[in-house]
């Protein structure tokens, strides 16, 4: 199988970001919170990307920021995914009142924009990483629920599933052998999209001052710290913004490719 150039670029960049996130401690040239230079210094041989609002090395903070941002986003998307697919599959396969109850609760949660729900919740809850992961993960699991329920419900009414039921197969066989293999590709692509959403969401919250708190650094928070410099033409705030965009676009490219592969598989069926 040939991988298109766009997907390849997406994979390389995504892989690069993950590598940097894992090995941040060894890669970053300076400590995360030490002022090591002047305020908003221009990029130089010493500070490759310049310094920030209180003279910290931006490159180092970006690298540590990658770690926090990716970690929180990954944890939240894994949570949303685990929760959403489990409940979605359960609702689709069992049907009846359980399906009704779950679907209506999700409708209710999705009747309010996620950001507003998050703001309301964060006005009460303490601000720490666990709370952030839980809030983002649970809010986003509603979308995963809808998708996985729809995908599983589409498959559950296929005649091969009916045939399996008539054959006397047990529930586990039906979910893992008949439904899951056919639901996998759209779900994998969805995971990429959920991850992007979590990155954007956590960055937005941090930018609003309601996400990751100092002394930890994350990209959204870095935009907030350096925003005042923009008025004086200091572009420090643009660097973390660019990092968010680069990560989001590269994951998008990979997810897009998986999605088109899935649909072309469908189109090729029935020869």
């Amino acid at each position: 199988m040939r991988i298109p150039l766009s997907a390849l670029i997406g994979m390389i960049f995504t892989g690069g970001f993950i590598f940097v996130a894992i090995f941040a401690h060894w890669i970053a040239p300076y400590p995360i919170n030490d002022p090591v230079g002047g305020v908003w210094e221009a990029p130089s041989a010493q500070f490759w990307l310049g310094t920030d609002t209180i003279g910290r090395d931006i490159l180092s903070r970006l690298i540590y920021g990658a770690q926090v941002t990716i970690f929180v986003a990954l944890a939240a998307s894994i949570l949303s995914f685990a929760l959403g697919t489990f409940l979605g599959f359960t609702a689709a396969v069992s049907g009846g009142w359980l399906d009704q109850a779950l679907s209506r609760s999700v409708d209710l949660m999705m009747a309010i924009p996620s950001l507003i729900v998050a703001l309301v919740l964060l006005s009460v809850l303490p601000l720490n990483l666990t709370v952030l992961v839980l809030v983002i993960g649970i809010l986003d699991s509603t979308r995963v629920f809808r998708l996985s329920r729809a995908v599983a419900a589409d498959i559950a009414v296929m005649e091969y599933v009916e045939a399996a039921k008539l054959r006397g197969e047990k529930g586990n066989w039906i979910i893992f052998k008949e439904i899951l293999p056919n639901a996998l590709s759209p779900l994998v692509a969805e995971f990429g999209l959920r991850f992007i959403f979590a990155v954007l969401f956590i960055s937005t919250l941090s930018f609003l001052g309601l996400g990751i708190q100092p002394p930890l650094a994350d990209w959204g928070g870095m935009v907030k710290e350096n925003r005042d410099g923009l008025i004086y033409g200091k572009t420090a705030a643009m660097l973390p913004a660019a990092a968010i965009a680069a990560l989001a676009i590269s994951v998008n490219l990979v997810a897009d490719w998986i999605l088109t592969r899935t649909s072309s598989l469908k189109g090729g069926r029935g020869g």
Partner: protein
Amino acid sequence: MHPIVKLLVQRIALGLLLLLAVSAVIFLGVEALPGDTAQAILGQSATPQALENLRAQLGLSDPPLTRYFNWLGGILTGDLGKALTNGADIAASIKPRLANTLFLAGCAAVIAVPLAILLGLVAARYAGKWPDKVISGITLSTISLPEFVVGYIVMYIFGVKMGWFSPTAMTFPGMSFWDRLHAVALPVIVLVLVVLAHMMRMTRAAILNVMQSAYIETAELKGVTPMNIIWKHALPNAIAPVVAVVMLNLAYLVVGVVVVEVVFSYNALGQYLVDHVTKRDLPVVQAVGLIFAGVYILLNMLADVIGIIANPRLRHPK
């Protein structure tokens, strides 16, 4: 009763029910979370006695259900209570800010809606050809950016580098309409960019969906001109999905304003909400949250209602 009226009544009733459920979630759900308003006001060092007094004073010692109905009754009569932090009347604080928010969102909608439909039409007309690819490519990259990033890019280019507009959107009472318009230009551009991509992509998909119908082929085989195919055959069927797309994206705009207002320090409802979340001023957060949710639910309901009215099968039952 005409079946369509029945459907509409059902849909509107469902919307109201949803709104009620959402208000319960915002009030009771938040109450159930760990955290204490009195503690939030007085801080960690407060004595138990002081906390107890404040709770009684705020009516926090009543059972939650009673307080919920009091709160709901207050909202219905226009009384949103007082802010914890400064004791200001919430309704009075909201009014001018809500007007500002609606002005900003309204300006963005007036530009974004026709533009998105036009671009969607062009992209659908040239589906798979270069105009489609260019439009799709640009919109795909704006979808990947969070609102605040778009905001700073726009601010840097047009506010700082070009110096065409003020980088912050300062408005004050008594400002002329044009000055006001000039002041909000940058946030409007950002909102348009953010909402345009989604709206245009969904419009394109809705139109392509209609254009691939068998009845469009029939029209082509009847020798109908391309212009008439679009006007007479595609458009009447595309209106409902496109209007639904527009409404859904206007609802999305509601969320966008929150962040954009903060970026441009625009004194409106979103900024007010974020400020009071930071201050943990729950009554304000609940009231503003309910307003945002209400607008969102209203727009979604409107999308459904238009969809029902535009459907010939429902309008002309068997």
